[in-house]
């Protein structure tokens, strides 16, 4: 499938202040269960609504890796699949429940070169109903130049 074109940003295409467009994902109990099973994370808070409610939640809640995977998708949907996540710190602000719609968008905060590595720092916010559920600070490595 190498004939499929995958748009890709290079380091020289990117500037501080560039916007990372919004990506959305509807959160359902099915998605929580798929993610819990796909990550071998059998903790019942991620699929057992009764367990979650007894432990202070209004419903089952998304596991961390769904938010990590979604924030990585926000970044690579924008930058392209030849981008590599070098560092990523995610800090939760509130749990994510079935019925929520995740919205992820971000900004380029800096662009720097370390030896022969071309790095871009980004700040991605994950929102539900307009309020932050997680903040992500990431560094990605991009190709230096647009491909010929």
């Amino acid at each position, binding site marked *: 499938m190498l004939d499929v074109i995958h748009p890709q940003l290079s380091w020289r295409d990117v500037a501080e202040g560039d916007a990372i467009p919004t990506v959305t994902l509807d959160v359902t109990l099915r998605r929580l269960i798929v993610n819990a099973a796909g990550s071998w994370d059998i903790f019942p808070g991620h699929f057992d609504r009764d367990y979650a409610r007894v432990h202070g939640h209004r419903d089952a809640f998304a596991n961390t890796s769904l938010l990590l995977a979604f924030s990585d998708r926000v970044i690579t949907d924008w930058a392209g699949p030849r981008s590599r996540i070098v560092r990523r710190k995610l800090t*939760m602000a509130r749990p994510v429940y079935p019925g929520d719609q995740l919205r992820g968008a971000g900004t380029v905060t800096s662009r720097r070169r370390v030896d022969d590595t071309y790095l871009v720092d980004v700040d991605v916010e994950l929102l539900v109903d307009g309020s932050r559920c997680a903040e992500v600070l990431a560094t990605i490595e991009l190709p230096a130049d647009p491909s010929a």
Partner: protein
Amino acid sequence: MSELVIGTYAEAKAQVGRLRHVLVSAGPVNEAMIKYFASASEDANPSFWDDAFAVEQWGGTTSPPAMLVHWVLPPPWSPGEPSGGPLAPPVLLTKVPLPGDTVINISVDYTYHRPVLVHERLHAVEELVDVSEEKTTRLGVGHFVTTTATFFTTGDEVVATQTNVALRYRAGGNHA
């Protein structure tokens, strides 16, 4: 269902800098688990789905970075274990003696040295680096537990490091 390790804050503090745990993958990084995982976030990145692209770009289909810890978790049950399995995957966080009988993650900070490719086998070494004093949160009363994990591939090459903060708590008070 076996529970988390329960104990006192003093017992937990005594384990800081001492408690370690090794997690070893049950099998190699593979396309089937990668595709299932990527489906949860509907991530169409061809590094996960298109072998020809991934080979040309990375040398092979790559693990989603978010999936790293999951490669080193054991199956929910294995021969010889009691029926039902543990409450949570047996990461270090569950083995810290604390009053909290449940857990929620607060932050995770990963540094990835290179992509992890299919057929690699991973293991991780976790260490307990901090336990906070008792805190009252929206979910209940508990302690913030900071752990680190170093991820190795065959040959003991370090492919990633991680610092995780989670809350071990007992529900009560104001609900979120």
